[in-house]
């Protein structure tokens, strides 16, 4: 049993950490958010250049054999800078689905371009009625002489507005809630029959609602009708990524709040000298430590189980969601008015910690899933 990092892992962590420190300060991030695309192509090129986009892929697929530990290291640092570039959408989910379900031709076609930073991806899975139920798919794909045409609506798809290629979960058979009958399709996002309404989410991440109307697919990805387990595994991996991000974000939130409490004066004393505030800062600290621990648990269990352990993952999402909730709320409350402003980072951390609680399944949903497994 050993929780220390290997030298390779230490290198990854240092490299991302340096990037956040040097190239992703709060003002830079604000400018990125206000730019036309809402993310920085320059940063994306850098991610590719530094090999981070290769981390989620095995060496066999041309990647760096990235484990969950690697993913955790990257995302925890990303969380500290609140990185909005679509790493999860493109590299973890988009590329991950092709690596998991694609045939050799598809892999050869897409993966090198993803790892080179030349291709933006999005995974179109959620629908207005599905909430967090991955088996609830109304979007349909009908086959005519080997070609598939897709119709339906997808909700709040991360990077959906910037993706070149969409991977769409659509039903090829069965009823709306059946586990069987869901298939994955590669779709050219620029087709006129793909209608996209893009927007930024409250946390600054780009997303879109997408409508398909008899949209021809580029091809089937993986086995027809058997996509659900693949989808679950990749959503779990993306969930792990946001869990790690939340742990990084909480660390910054706590550090900022602690720093503020040590300097801000009220009634002639620093507010950190008031015992009630001290105890709440300790409570935030404990929440962050517990979140960090359960993240480690999930990472190690997933890594020792071929990248998948739904029970461990759901435990982590549940516990980290609770911690994110408390740490986020307390960060604002202890900062007072200044924490409510758009001008400083804590409000933005709070917003990201809020969306993470609901992204890929709420805290309660994951608690329930943990208990059921």
């Amino acid at each position, binding site marked *: 049993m050993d929780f220390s990092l290997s030298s390779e892992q230490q290198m990854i962590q240092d490299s991302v950490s340096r990037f956040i420190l040097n190239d992703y300060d709060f003002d830079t991030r604000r400018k990125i958010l206000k730019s036309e695309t809402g993310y920085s192509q320059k940063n994306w090129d850098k991610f590719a250049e530094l090999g981070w986009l290769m981390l989620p892929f095995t060496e066999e697929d041309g990647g760096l054999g990235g484990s969950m530990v690697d993913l955790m290291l990257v995302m925890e640092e990303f969380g500290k800078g609140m990185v909005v570039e679509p790493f999860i959408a493109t590299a973890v989910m988009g590329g991950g689905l092709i690596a998991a379900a694609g045939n050799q031709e598809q892999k050869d076609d897409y993966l090198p371009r993803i790892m080179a930073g030349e291709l933006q991806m999005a995974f179109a899975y*959620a629908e207005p009625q599905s909430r967090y139920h991955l088996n*609830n798919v109304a979007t349909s794909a009908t086959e005519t002489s080997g070609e598939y045409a897709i119709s339906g609506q997808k909700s709040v798809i991360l990077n959906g507005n910037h993706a070149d290629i969409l991977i769409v979960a659509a039903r090829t058979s069965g009823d709306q809630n059946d586990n069987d009958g869901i298939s994955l399709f590669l779709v050219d996002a620029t087709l006129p029959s793909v209608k996209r309404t893009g927007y930024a989410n*409250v946390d600054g991440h780009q997303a879109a609602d997408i409508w398909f109307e008899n949209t021809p697919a580029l091809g089937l990805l993986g086995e027809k009708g058997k996509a659900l387990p693949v989808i679950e595994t990749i959503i779990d991996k993306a969930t792990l990524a946001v869990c790690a991000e939340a742990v990084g974000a909480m660390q910054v939130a706590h550090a900022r709040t602690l720093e503020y409490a040590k300097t801000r004066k009220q009634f002639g004393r620093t507010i950190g000298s008031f015992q009630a505030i001290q105890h709440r800062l300790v409570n935030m600290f404990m929440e962050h430590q517990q979140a960090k621990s359960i993240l480690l648990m999930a990472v190690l269990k997933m890594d020792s189980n071929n990248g998948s352990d739904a029970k461990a993952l759901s435990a982590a999402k549940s516990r980290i969601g609770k911690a994110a909730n408390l740490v986020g*709320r307390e960060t604002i409350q202890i900062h007072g008015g200044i924490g409510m*402003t758009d*001008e400083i980072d804590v409000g933005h951390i709070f*917003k990201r910690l809020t969306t993470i609680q609901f992204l890929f399944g709420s805290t309660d949903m994951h608690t329930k899933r943990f208990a059921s497994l």
Partner: protein
Amino acid sequence: MNLNFSTEETDFQQEVRQFLQDKLPKDIAKKTKDGLHLSKDEYVQWQQILHAQGWSAPNWPVEHGGTAWTPTQKYIFANECAKAGAPDVIPFGLKMVAPIIYTFGNEEQKQRFLPDILASNVWWCQGYSETGAGSDLAGLKTTAVRDGDEYVVNGTKTWTTLGQYADWIFCLVRTGAPSAKNQEAISFLLINMHDPKITVSPIVLIDGKPEVNEVHFDGVRVPAENLIGVEGQGWTYAKILLSHERTGIARVALSKERLVQLKELAQGSPDGANKLLDDPIFAQKVADVEINLLALEYTELRTLSAISTGQAPGPESSILKIVGTQVIQAIDELYVEAAGYYSMPFVPHQFEDDFEGQHIGSDMEANTALRYFNNRKASIYGGSNEIQTNIISKAVLGL
């Protein structure tokens, strides 16, 4: 003990309902129910409708335009307004500066200011907080130095809610020497916001809205006749007002209405093959908040009952603000949860009247996160919950 309304009270309830049905503009009611920000014009429109009815200032003394309602009538009015989707009146004129003027102002000031406040002809804002003087107001630094018949005001006020619309601001300013005891150095001054030496800079909050502002005073000359009461008593006046106004501080009526809507939203929110409200965990959380709100309502009613039977409000009244904000924020969280993925998109333009594009989620869903973020302020402003807790600890528990 008796929970029932009298015949007079039931009649009054009917009258309020009828008024709201006839006079409350439908578009304002819808925006209010969806938790959207209203424009200045919309606020003024509604407040002038209330004024036309004689109901714009229920708490004022009758001689200045008050209604002489009993606490029970005020309770009925607040409940009916919330149910109908009537927006809150902007408090700075009608609920904050007016009581100070009619209590501590001179006759000339009353004549000059109260009628326009009552009729919502003039928009007021509040100049209390400063950077470095938030919960601890005694540390404020804006100065007003007497020069002949004028005060010369320098400094910066912050968190000035809706100050961008204001015609007038009421300020706590430092008139004494910096060495004077805090309580004796602070005065209450009314300042015309149209003075060119005043600049207003918006502060964008985490919901993306410029709801609050910084107000900079750069050598603004204010006639001494705008001083309320006695120089050096400003802090006393402000404090008396704070402890005076209890009705409605818990926001019970609003929270009740929002819970009704939340349940509608959750009843309509699909959750895979089911409805979200059928989820036992979610339903239990809603019930917990609903029950706590029910308790809070009776805490408020206990206070009202004490007042209406001529007793002093008991210690229970001290918890109204704290528990009220806890309930508001708990409801906000449940809304976000009910909206699920559709709590995430930041699409403020879709709430504009002239927006014609594709709506993302329902308006109620799309507004949940913004409202959640905005309402974090509820436990911070007007004396943070920590300050409220300290007050109860000292004043009620004697610690």
